[in-house]
């Protein structure tokens, strides 16, 4: 498992704590204290929590010893580009669904809470991370089977 595969696995596992921890806090605040901006807190918590996660590889790269071996090459870059492209396609589909589903549910003259908007952004972040991690793992699984040298 190289560093890119490890990052992709992290990307698949990351949304779980991203969703559960700030989500749990937001739901607690919303139901216990009755604060209406709980989804905004949830989004802020997610960004903070996710930011700390993404700092980890950067910090390890700064603190750890410089590696002599090549760990990222043209194939990794190609896989990363394809994964990001796939994630953007999924993100677009997600936002189309996020816009159309409330319209289908409440009808053309209905109304929805503005709390849906930060939640939609949060969902987009999670969907993007999931899709990118999955696309990366699928590509490495197809073309990066380990062999014996």
């Amino acid at each position, binding site marked *: 498992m190289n560093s890119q595969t490890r990052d992709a696995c992290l990307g698949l596992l990351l949304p779980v704590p991203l969703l559960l921890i700030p989500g749990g806090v937001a739901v607690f605040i919303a139901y216990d204290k009755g604060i209406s901006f709980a989804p905004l807190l949830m989004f802020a918590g997610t960004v903070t929590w996710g930011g700390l996660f993404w700092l980890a590889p950067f910090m390890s790269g700064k603190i750890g010893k410089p590696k002599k071996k090549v760990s990222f090459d*043209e194939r990794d870059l190609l896989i990363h580009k394809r994964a990001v492209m796939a994630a953007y396609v999924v993100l677009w589909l997600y936002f189309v669904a996020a816009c159309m589903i409330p319209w289908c549910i409440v009808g053309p003259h209905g109304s929805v809470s503005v709390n849906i908007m930060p939640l939609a952004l949060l969902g987009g972040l999670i969907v993007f991370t999931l899709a990118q991690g999955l696309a990366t793992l699928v590509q490495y699984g197809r073309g990066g089977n380990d062999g014996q040298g």
Partner: protein
Amino acid sequence: MAKDDIQNQIRRLRFDHGEMTQQQLADKAGVTRQTIIAIEAGKYAPSLPLAFRIAAAFSVPLEDVFQYHANGQPPKADGKTGDPKLNRPASAHKRGT
């Protein structure tokens, strides 16, 4: 759409060069071992600079490492590919015929 196939002789060349390991070749070419594995298995077509670096690691011409087969056809005895467009003389290319 025509299916193009790029075959390579990396495995044979590695063993011809003192049983060079994939890691040693990767270090010489400046890529990861996973990339060498993928190229050797025919799952990844390298860029032109990387193909030249791999050929340089074996000190052989590029065509000794990689062979292009158009439409999945095997190469002919004279070294020509199965694609007639690629077998035209250079003068024909210049004329645009």
